[in-house]
């Protein structure tokens, strides 16, 4: 059991236990102990998972960009950086999807509709699609180095593009002064326990991200190692063709 159970180590197991405990406390605080908001009532309880999800997605995409940049600039071009970038991008897509769904449920309660053409919402949707494209490019095939070079350039392009999309979308919305949309975060008056729940959520989700990233990145390392090993087999098979 010890040491040989997949991508885990004693450190990740301990981290995993901490994450689960923190998420348990978060659920108790967020869903039970914390007070209802004066304006939003019980719907504020969605915030305790919605905000940490989108926060994690931002961390993940920033991680993807940083690792892609390091991969391209480092002298030895270690594929480990590319794998961390890819793993992080994948986790980011998961969390941005989750936060889009929970956000629109929250919106249904506070705004009355699932979707409003709010700048932040719209550019988050673009973020989601951009990184789906990033993951698609990672699946294009070729050697590991081709994958790494292509996807790291694309990740850096995405970082350039996202502020521009966000800026143009907010400019677009600012000129359409429709009935001022309730901003779910601005109207919340947070008391002590509510603030505690929110920060607990942020920390728990960040640690959850680290845990997922460690495992995913190790699994990717094994995937790469296996296809390298497949290459060894293929090389031997290829050499044997010569005699046949």
């Amino acid at each position, binding site marked *: 059991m010890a040491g040989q159970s997949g991508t885990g180590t004693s450190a990740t197991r301990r981290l995993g236990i901490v994450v689960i405990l923190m998420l348990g406390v978060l659920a108790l605080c967020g869903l039970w102990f914390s007070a209802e908001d004066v304006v939003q009532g019980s719907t504020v309880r969605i915030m305790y998972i919605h905000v940490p999800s989108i926060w994690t997605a931002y961390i993940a995409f920033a991680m993807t960009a940083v690792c892609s940049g390091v991969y391209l600039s480092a002298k030895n071009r270690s594929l480990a950086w590319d794998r961390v970038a890819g793993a992080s991008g994948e986790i980011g897509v998961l969390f941005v999807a989750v936060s889009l769904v929970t956000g629109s449920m929250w919106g249904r309660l506070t705004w009355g509709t699932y979707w409003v053409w709010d700048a932040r919402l719209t550019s988050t949707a673009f973020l989601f699609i951009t990184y789906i494209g990033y993951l698609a490019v990672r699946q294009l*095939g070729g*050697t590991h180095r081709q994958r790494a070079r292509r996807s790291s350039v694309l990740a850096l392009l995405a970082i350039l593009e996202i502020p521009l999309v966000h800026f143009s979308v907010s400019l677009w919305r600012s000129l359409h002064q429709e009935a001022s949309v309730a901003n779910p975060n601005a109207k919340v008056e947070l008391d002590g326990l509510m603030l505690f729940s929110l920060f607990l959520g942020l920390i728990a989700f960040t640690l959850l991200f680290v845990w997922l990233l460690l495992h995913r990145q190790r699994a990717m390392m094994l995937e790469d190692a296996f296809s390298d090993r497949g290459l060894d087999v*293929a090389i031997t098979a*290829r*050499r*044997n*063709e010569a005699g046949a």
Partner: protein
Amino acid sequence: MDTVIELSGVVAVLGQFPALAGIDLAVQRGEIVLLQGPNGAGKTSLLRVCAGLLPIERGTGHVLGIDLATNREAIRSRVGLLGHANGLYLDLTVMQNMQFWASTVGATKSEVDSAMATMRIDGRLARVKASQLSAGQRRRCALASLIVRRAEIWLLDEPHAGLDAAGRDELDALLRSAVSSGATVVLASHERDRALGLATRTVTIDGGGAS
């Protein structure tokens, strides 16, 4: 002697398939090396590796003293590759193709004219769209574009394919004159008798390796 191509244990991968599986090869300046072997032996990939097009996955390789692993882009401007494809734009005429090619590689008009005359694609043919040419005529165009490159190493993949008897004689003469002016030629060909008469040495490629 001066070694222009030096590969040792080179592995090159197409997708997940090792087209070259640890090949060793050394070519001296002024040689005409014939690569022989069955279909799918790795001849095309070998030529593409030497041209700096295909990255090497393992092993070491130097072409004209330049490291293939770290600096393969630098090799490209000094070698010429004639692949299976001819590199033509099918919607352009022969003349337009040659003019485009000349202005990208920096060849003069007289060099283009003489190359086109050498491959006999001047005159009436020059105004025909590439899509209307026969396979042999397209091959001639590709060879003419190779001539204006003045490459130090000529890498030719089935250069005889599609050429008529006269074209083959012209090709042989062309390669001999290139070698006499200091170039090196590596060619893969199934035209065994013709290529053997031309080559100074034969290398057999099979299963992604050389013997």
